[in-house]
């Protein structure tokens, strides 16, 4: 059964179907979209259970000729994309459920765009052909553009333009780089290919690697976003409707990090070695800078957005530490950040639906009025500050340890996040939820409805599960992570190749280092 195509295109098919339903049927769209997202989630669970953690090769592969000249429909997942696919399918039903009452205007279009967005995101995660990857990458922008532009806040047009321009700018550079890779591969082999794993066999001159890496890295760094490309994020978050923010923070930002893992790192190992020190500095600035900016935000959403800048900085720093603990921690933290920040945005949404303001100063003492909500909000805060026993700790401690292994100074600077995060989140929680009730409107707030509780419960359960039994997820990615590190660190680089061939381009014949050469390398390293 082509599971990957099914989960990618099922939402899209739903969106197509919606076109033919009269728009008066508001509830029908909601129920139908939720059902579709739930079915997609359930189908994606089979991926999780049937996944073979013993191999780094892509699984559930599907391949079909498409345009020709190497442009194929080729999908598959490994231990890295598996969990991100699941995060996506898990969060979309929640996002749909969360906007049940809030979206009253153009309900039909709203759900069409949400479903298209889901298809786009899943498409990026499962693509194994670079062209396909690019198509999904760009296609995803369209629904997001409309979600913010139509259902957003007052400055939605500015925010959505900024978001789209930033992302497209990065995307275009990436496209140029993809074409360059494509033609290089053709020159070296006489074969047209855009297969991601096939292109990784190319051994490019360091100067060329450098330019290509920069193009890819810029596209992904904007998406993450890494300092100093982050300013689109607070604007987009503040203006986006709740579900948009949840998806943006929980899933879309991960695409940037995923791009590094899937493309930028394994394709250009020489360039990676060269740029990691610079990128690490940007990450560290991002961690501290994002946290300090979060500290002083007056708008809750913008605060959570800056906290994402800080957290994603930590994730990227762990990625650049290029060791098992760091990479595993980074992916785990990506899942974890998806849950905790997603939950934080859901909480802000709950408040916004009641008071129609996002300013911290308009709140105070909400806990007293909404004890159940208060419990979930606190849980989200604690998960985000990395309290042990919850999801955030496992990812954070692995990230920090990986970073520490790579460079102790990075870790000492990066570890400030655990202090600063407690600062800005608890301070926000205090001003919004604790203290006396200052705004009389708050006295009429109803506590969470059953629907709203249903939004939070799955997230809460998963937070505890991920905190207590991380092995469930860590074990799925071991092999793929080791393989990735092998790709980046032990792959033959241009320099190791340069002695016998002076071509600009080289190609390795064996796709993955054989067992023999691996053991050889291990012995060498000793």
């Amino acid at each position, binding site marked *: 059964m082509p599971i990957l195509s099914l989960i990618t295109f099922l939402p899209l098919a739903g969106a197509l179907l919606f076109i033919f339903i009269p728009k008066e049927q508001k509830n029908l769209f909601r129920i139908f979209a939720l059902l579709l997202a739930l079915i997609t989630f359930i189908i994606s669970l089979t991926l999780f259970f049937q996944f073979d953690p013993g191999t780094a090769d892509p699984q559930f592969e599907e391949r079909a000729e498409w345009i020709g000249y190497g442009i194929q429909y080729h999908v598959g997942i490994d231990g890295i994309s598996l969990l991100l696919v699941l995060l996506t399918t898990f969060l979309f039903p929640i996002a749909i459920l969360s906007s049940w009452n809030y979206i009253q205007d153009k309900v039909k279009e709203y759900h069409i765009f949400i479903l298209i967005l889901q298809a786009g995101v899943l498409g990026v995660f499962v693509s194994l052909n670079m062209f396909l990857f690019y198509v999904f990458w760009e296609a995803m922008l369209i629904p997001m553009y409309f979600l913010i532009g139509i259902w957003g806040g007052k400055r939605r047009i500015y925010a959505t333009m*900024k978001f789209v*321009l*930033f992302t497209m700018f990065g995307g275009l550079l990436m496209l140029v780089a993809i074409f360059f890779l494509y033609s290089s591969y053709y020159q070296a082999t006489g074969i047209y290919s855009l297969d991601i794993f096939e292109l990784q066999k190319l051994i490019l001159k360091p100067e060329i690697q450098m330019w290509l890496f920069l193009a890819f890295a810029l596209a992904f760094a904007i998406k993450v976003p890494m300092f*100093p490309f982050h*300013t689109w994020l607070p604007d987009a978050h503040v203006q986006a409707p709740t579900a948009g923010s949840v998806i943006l923070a929980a899933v879309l930002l991960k695409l940037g990090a995923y791009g590094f893992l899937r493309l930028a790192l394994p394709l250009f190992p020489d360039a990676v070695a060269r740029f990691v020190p610079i990128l690490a500095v940007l990450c560290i600035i991002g961690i501290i*800078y994002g946290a*300090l*900016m979060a*500290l*002083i935000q007056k708008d809750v959403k913008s605060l959570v957005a800056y906290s994402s800048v800080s957290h994603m900085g930590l994730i990227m720093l762990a990625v650049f530490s290029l*060791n*098992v*603990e760091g990479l*595993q*921690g980074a992916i785990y933290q990506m899942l974890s950040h998806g849950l905790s920040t997603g939950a934080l945005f859901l909480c802000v949404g709950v408040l916004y639906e009641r008071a129609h303001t996002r300013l911290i100063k308009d709140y105070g*003492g909400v*806990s*007293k009025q909404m*004890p159940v909500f208060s*419990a979930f909000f606190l849980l989200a805060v*604690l998960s985000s500050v990395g*309290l*042990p*026993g919850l999801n955030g*700790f*496992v990812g954070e*401690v*692995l990230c*920090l*340890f*990986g970073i*520490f*292994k790579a460079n102790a100074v990075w*870790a*000492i600077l990066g*570890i*400030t996040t*655990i*202090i600063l995060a*407690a*600062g800005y989140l*608890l*301070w926000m929680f*205090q001003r919004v*939820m*604790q*203290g*006396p009730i200052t705004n009389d409107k708050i006295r009429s707030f109803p506590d969470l409805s059953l629907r709203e509780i249903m939004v939070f419960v799955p997230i809460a359960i998963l937070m505890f599960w991920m905190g*207590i*039994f*991380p*092995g469930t997820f*860590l074990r799925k990615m071991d092999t793929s992570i080791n393989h990735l590190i092998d790709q980046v660190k032990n792959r033959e680089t241009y320099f190791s190749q340069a002695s016998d061939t002076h071509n600009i381009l080289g190609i390795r014949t064996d796709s993955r280092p054989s067992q023999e050469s691996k053991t050889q390398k291990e012995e060498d390293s000793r």
Partner: protein
Amino acid sequence: MAELFWLIPFFPALSSLLLILFGRKLPRKYIAFQACLAVFFSLALSILSFLSLLGSGHEGHGLIKNLFAWIHSGSFKVDLSLQFDQLTAVMCLVVSGVGFLIHVYSSGYMAEDKSFARFFAYMNLFTFSMLLLVMASNLVLMFVGWEGVGLCSYLLIGFWFEKPSAADAGKKAFIVNRIGDAGFMLGIFFILLHIGSAEFAAVNHAVEAGGFAQGLATLIALLLFVGAIGKSAQIPLYVWLPDAMEGPTPVSALIHAATMVTAGVYMVARMNLLYSLSPVAMQVVAIVGALTAVYAASMALTQNDIKRVLAYSTISQLGYMFIGLGVGAYSAAVFHLYTHAFFKSLLFLGAGSVMHALSGELDLRKMGGLRKYLPLTFPTFLIATIAIAGVPFFSGFFSKDAILTSAFANGQYLIWALGLMGAVLTAFYMFRVVFLTFYGKERLEPEAKAHLHESPKTMTIPLVILAFFSIVAGYVGLPIVLGKNVNLFDRFLEPVIHAPHGAHLSLSSEWMLILASVAVALFGIFIAYVFYLKKPDIPHNLVARFPWLYKLLYNKYYMDEIYNATFVNSTIKGSELVYKHFDLKVIDGALNGSAKTMNTIGKLLSSLQTGLIKDYALVFLLGALILLGYFVF
């Protein structure tokens, strides 16, 4: 039964979970019953495990239970694994024993509170976290409990979160603790990186095998100590603890006596082999401890809030424990931790009982002459005061003396002298509290006087039990001169604590030290008697004479203000400046600027698009001509 020891922490955990989920629907009596019962189960199982450990002889290395692989990634391998050895046994008994009494007391004290279930859910969670902390068999799992008690202190100090001061205090406790935690985590990373395991057994093994160079050991020991400074409220991270009294009084008792603040002391004692490798780190620990002991005691002198006096006294007493650790008298430090747990929880609960009697009054100036109204609270509070003041034959005397004797024996005379100085201050400020509260003229508010009453049995019985232990707990660790050459407590801890055999004192000098301790204690009491009972105008005269000194002490050396001005405000102000001038102006400015440039270029270009066919035809023609020219020439 003993092999089920690993269940000890999970009774309160389960109870807490049930209370969080269903507490709002349960009747109060049941809630209190369940919460107390859960801790009682922990206590009972701790006692059983302790007895079986005793039975296994002195060579027993305790039990270990590996529940499952928790976080395994590359060289980061941590299991959920619990242990029960001699040190853990002492801690478990203290935590669950004192914790149980505090739970029982709370069921009376909190009877009127609206959030009864929430309170007990947090209390149970607190007990669970602390039990996990002391039972963890590796540093990372210990860190879970470590952060867990930090969380519970946040929740419980800020229990009455409608009060801004309570919400502030809770937040402060969590953040200050996190500063320490960051250092602690780095220490763990160094150990993990160096020996590939965070298990205590592996660390000890590596130390014994010479796996740690002295420099590395110093670095690790100091980083871990940063965590201890935060958790055990030592200079400079003590600022959260005095504010912690914003929480309900039983919470203070739990934080100050049984859980939380003792964590740092426990951790250093647990890592004693590593600390012993580094004389530098040990010296730092001893100095920080000695300075804190005196510094905190000096702040306790002038406070008028009964709970604040007790809070500074806790900081000061923890200082003594760190003196003990720093001079290598690990088991003496643990001994003091154990006796302190009884009398300090008794003091807090007694203070709570006074508050209860006076409808919430905390100000010592509005008390006085209460002894005849509170026939149980008064004698038990007095016993605790005598114990903490270091009067002979009460528990505090033995443990404090053990620490000071060790400091002296190790040649740390300055530290010993500071310790003695702290002891005078302790005796003085504690008896000041007793005299101001229970003796002298009644200075009660008429309102409070009308409702004056002794507390219910659920509150007074724990007081009596704690008073009993405040007297007798010390007899398991008699000094060698009194205890027939055997200190049972030291002997029991021997398998865990590998104390370097310090210089032995002669009998006569040991007697001399004991006499010195006794003398300073009595001196402190005497001064308090003169100041507050005999000639109450002396303190007033002193204040009039040295107003600056009084103000300095009363305002706690203005440390909170200094921290706020330097760290907190500068961070916030600085961030605001950066946000305004960099994030919005430079980064976004560059972006909007380039957008504007594009806009201008676009406008220029768009003027070409006139929409008139003849213009386009003209351009078309021009283009064709140019192309033609190109091909022709």
